[in-house]
């Protein structure tokens, strides 16, 4: 039997990009998220510019293995309560979970690629700095 979680106050400002705040017990949680962050000097946006075909989005991430060895576990709940007075969270993002209560399996996968694009002028500036 699982323990009872008691939280008096939970305050979360932002929950975004395939994230979950779960209050109560759950069985399976499976989250998946892909992000392509393009930062550039010029203000220019085209959603079809980069297809999500980079290796980081397709490569297999080896998950930590679940040990299938049979463990004879005896758990004694001397006090079947997890008490937390207050939780203050500013942000939950990119396939993350805030879970109050018991769960069975949690699987989450997050893939993030950053691209930075600068203008040529800046390169010249950098080159001149290097020559100094």
């Amino acid at each position, binding site marked *: 039997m699982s323990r009872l979680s008691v939280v008096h106050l939970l305050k979360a400002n932002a929950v975004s990009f395939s994230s979950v705040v779960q209050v109560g017990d759950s069985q399976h949680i499976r989250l998946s998220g892909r992000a392509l962050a393009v930062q550039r000097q010029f203000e220019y946006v085209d959603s079809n510019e980069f297809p999500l075909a*980079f290796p980081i989005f397709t490569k297999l991430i080896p998950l930590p293995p679940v040990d299938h060895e049979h463990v004879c576990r*005896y758990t004694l709940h001397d006090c079947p309560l997890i008490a937390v007075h207050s939780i203050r969270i500013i942000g939950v993002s990119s396939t993350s979970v805030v879970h109050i209560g018991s769960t069975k399996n949690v699987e989450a996968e997050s*893939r993030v690629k950053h691209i930075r694009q600068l203008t*040529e002028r800046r390169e010249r500036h950098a080159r001149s700095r290097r020559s100094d």
Partner: protein
Amino acid sequence: MNMTVVNHHLSVGHIAIGGVASASLVLIGDSETIQLASAFDTPPESLIIGPFPQKQNNKKNEEKR
């Protein structure tokens, strides 16, 4: 393998968290299995210096029209 776990009194006052990101978990409770994986990529070739090829193509398309 035999294992005995005794859970005694657990009481926490305040938890302050700045951010939970990229396949992370904050769990107030019990769990059986947790598998979290995250990949983050910013290699040197991710830094592109130079003109915007897509922007030039758009300009060409406009000229064609």
